[in-house]
């Protein structure tokens, strides 16, 4: 079981190394928030709900277009981009990270940093289980 403190540390590491990321939330597959940079609890809750809806509807569009399983997405707007990455945990359930960036981010680098953050949580949860 991953501790919220571990997730908060992983989030702090992410925002320190990735200057392009503005806000982030890490969410378990059941929708529970592990950590977020959004200070206001109700805004954070809404952010996570909308991010999960975005992922769900993007997955539906992916099915319509006949693509294989969706692993990540970038929604680019004129105000900035939204990134969502989904990854299976060693325990089997999905874990999701959603982030916002400033306009015109370095897409590959942001995805790399978000996936690195999720991988570091996998390592922590495996170590905790041992």
């Amino acid at each position: 079981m991953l501790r919220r403190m571990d997730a908060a540390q992983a989030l702090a590491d992410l925002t320190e190394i990735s200057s392009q990321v503005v806000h982030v939330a890490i969410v378990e597959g059941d929708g529970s928030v592990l950590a977020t940079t959004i200070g206001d609890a109700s805004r954070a809750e809404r952010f996570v709900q909308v991010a999960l809806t975005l992922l769900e509807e993007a997955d539906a569009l992916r099915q319509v277009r006949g693509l294989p399983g969706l692993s990540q997405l970038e929604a680019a707007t004129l105000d900035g981009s939204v990134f969502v990455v989904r990854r299976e945990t060693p325990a089997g359930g999905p874990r999701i990270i959603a982030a916002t960036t400033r306009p015109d981010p370095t897409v590959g680098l942001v995805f790399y940093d978000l996936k690195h953050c999720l991988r570091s949580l996998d390592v922590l949860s495996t170590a905790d289980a041992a």
Partner: protein
Amino acid sequence: MLMLGAGSLAGTVLYRRRAARRVERVDLYAEDGSMASVAAGAPGADRLLALAHELMALAG
């Protein structure tokens, strides 16, 4: 003259590339590494972009 023409062409290419990046879109990445880009106005894109706008506002 040739240098001026080449510089102008390069500037036009860069401007067009930058303008193309400013179009709102959603890029979907599949598990097999493939990617589909859905531009604003395409079926399904506007709903996803509306959610993205809401997220940007919440993160404000």
